[in-house]
């Protein structure tokens, strides 16, 4: 009997203990429809509330005692598209800092990494704009405000270039892709995009800077770099979700402020993992490209024998300007040696922007070159890689050198009789400039003349040599082994052509043709 009473007593004690442990829910106190009617909530303590009417707004007040990073979340309410706004108390009333609305029904809202200083803040919970406003007095929402260590975090709101957070070069800063939308962003191209803006100052120019933003799960990051005039110096290309974005070798030619914009594509958000952004600079020594050099107007000047560049990100195009101000055309050798990962191409443009030549002879990892580019300086070289190829870590090298070979008259393109190079003297020196390069040379003599052509083939390239009639029809052809010579005689009826063709796939070889009146 006593034992039975003891058991009942223990049971009662356990029930009483459990009952006392049950957390009491704290509910909003209506009316709290304006910031003047609100009540204080504690950081770390959840509070529940209802959408009592179709136009219900619930204000809550938070007092921040020390600079901190707020994590504000509002749980989902069935059938309701909720939203919240963070306000800061000012002498004149309140000022909205951030509006958070992911534009989804029955979905939670969260703003993480919201840096606040000491002061009073308000949080107003309301209906979102997208869906019809409905009341729900059966299911409450829960508002929870937590705080985190604000050290090295972004400071929201930094949604515009005017509110950009200052960065220290070499010191990483973190931030969240949170929230998903920014209703105040009315940019026509990317409306409602949540953007984080940062700024850094360059006191000595020129310098080259590298900017890296770490990858975050589920986020395809967008990284833009903008100068003080609003010119976009760099805009990242899509790299996929969870992948870092890197702007490498961005040239900053003027001292002053520069800006960085970080955003998530497709209104994605990640409230769990912050991104890390770091800016580093290095002095410019003329041996590397200056990004952005994706257009002719921002071409990197070439002042050294070789200049290094990278194909990054995917689709990167690098323009270089070979200097000088010469009205006379000269021969130049242009070479691009890629890393083993890239199938590189390059094109040559005149100063007027006319494309002269595109070089694409080789495959991945192989050097591309033009041994006898003939034009006046300055000219432009555009370097890029086959679609989908990039290499963040390894450079290609672009080398440009004048070519001084006497009697070099092989001006490409001279692949047809219409493009034939006129022969002035008695010697032709030419290059097999590319795979299957055909060179036409035009002969002009007074009357009929019998000529003897002593042809010497390049060291490693067998060639065929043809002489044509005045219309370009071949009269005779001889094949000459690599490194060897042969003599051809033919009558030129006032006008004719010489044609030199390689007989294998090799190129970059010099041949000569001596034209004589006697054997």
């Amino acid at each position, binding site marked *: 009997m006593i034992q039975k009473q003891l058991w009942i007593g223990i049971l009662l004690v356990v029930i009483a203990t459990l009952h006392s442990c049950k957390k009491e829910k704290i509910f909003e106190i209506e009316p709290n429809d304006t910031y003047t009617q609100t009540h204080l909530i504690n950081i770390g303590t959840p509070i529940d509330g209802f959408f009592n009417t179709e136009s219900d707004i619930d204000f809550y007040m938070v007092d921040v005692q020390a600079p901190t990073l707020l994590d504000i979340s509002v749980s989902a309410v069935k059938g309701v598209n909720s939203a919240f706004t963070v306000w800061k108390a000012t002498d004149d009333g309140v000022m909205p800092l951030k509006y958070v609305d992911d534009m989804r029904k029955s979905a939670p809202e969260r703003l993480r990494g919201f840096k606040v200083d000491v002061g009073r803040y308000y949080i107003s919970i309301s209906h979102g704009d997208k869906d019809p406003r409905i009341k729900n007095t059966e299911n409450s929402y829960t508002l929870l405000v937590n705080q985190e260590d604000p050290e090295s975090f972004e400071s929201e709101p930094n949604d515009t270039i005017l509110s950009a957070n200052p960065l220290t070069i070499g010191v990483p800063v973190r931030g969240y892709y949170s929230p998903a939308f920014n209703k105040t962003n009315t940019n026509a191209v990317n409306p409602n995009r949540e953007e984080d803006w940062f700024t850094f100052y360059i006191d000595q120019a020129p310098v080259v800077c590298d900017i890296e933003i770490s990858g975050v799960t589920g986020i395809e990051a967008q990284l833009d770099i903008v100068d003080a005039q609003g010119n976009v110096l760099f805009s990242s290309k899509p790299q996929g979700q969870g992948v870092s974005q890197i702007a490498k070798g961005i040239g900053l030619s003027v001292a002053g402020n520069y800006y960085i914009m970080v955003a998530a594509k497709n209104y994605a958000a990640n409230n769990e993992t912050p991104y890390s952004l770091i800016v580093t600079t290095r002095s410019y020594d003329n041996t590397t490209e200056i990004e952005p050099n994706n257009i002719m107007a921002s071409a990197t000047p070439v002042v050294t024998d070789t200049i290094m560049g990278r194909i990054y990100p995917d689709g990167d195009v690098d323009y270089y300007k070979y200097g000088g101000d010469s009205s006379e055309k000269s021969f130049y050798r242009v070479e691009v040696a890629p890393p083993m990962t890239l199938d590189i191409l390059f094109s040559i443009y005149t100063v007027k922007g006319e494309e002269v030549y595109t070089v694409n002879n080789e495959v991945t990892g192989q050097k591309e070159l033009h041994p006898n580019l003939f034009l006046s300086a300055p000219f432009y070289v555009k370097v890029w890689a086959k679609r989908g190829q990039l290499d963040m870590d390894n450079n290609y090298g672009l080398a440009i050198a004048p070519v001084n070979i006497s009697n070099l008259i092989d001006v490409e393109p001279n692949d047809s009789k219409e493009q034939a190079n006129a022969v002035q003297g008695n010697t032709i020196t030419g290059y097999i400039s590319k795979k299957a390069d055909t060179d036409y040379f035009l002969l002009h003599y007074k009357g009929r*003349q019998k000529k003897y052509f002593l042809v010497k083939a390049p060291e490693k390239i067998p060639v065929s040599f*043809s002489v044509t009639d005045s219309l370009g029809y071949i*009269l005779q052809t001889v094949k000459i082994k690599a490194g060897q010579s042969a003599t051809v005689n033919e009558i030129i009826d006032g006008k004719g052509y010489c044609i030199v063709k390689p007989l294998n796939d090799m190129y970059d070889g010099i041949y000569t043709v001596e034209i004589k009146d006697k054997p």
Partner: protein
Amino acid sequence: MRTVKYFFLLLLLVSVSYVVSCKTVPQYEAPVEPVIAPVDVTVNFRFIAYDTAITNPDDDKRCYYKVFIDKIDAGRTTIGLESQKKYFEAKLSPNTHLIVIEKWVLDEREGEYKKVNNIAQPKPNYYYFETKKNAVTEVTMVNDKKTNTAQYSVSMQ
């Protein structure tokens, strides 16, 4: 004694006649390659060739004749339609010479001249002619394209 005397006299006569006869043998001359005459060089030989019996312009091909003189490649005629006169000129030593011709026709598809099959070459493809120092020997070859029969005529100017 008398017989011996006559024998020595006869031997002397034979020896003298032999020496005299050796002196009159023409000296050998190495073949001289014909000189293709630039405009300012006087020539003494001209070869003219053309075809007849061409009834369809499509059959009137662009062609030339390769010219061998004294079995040496001397060059070629000018280029023209088969029906057109094509010329070759040279400065030759005064002598009898042999001209052999070889017809080459343009293969438009290939963009080059190709030697006409032996069957379709003019027949005969050779002719002997005389040249003099101060006159121009003109050899004209008229080829009937239907029969590939060539007729040669020569004139001295």
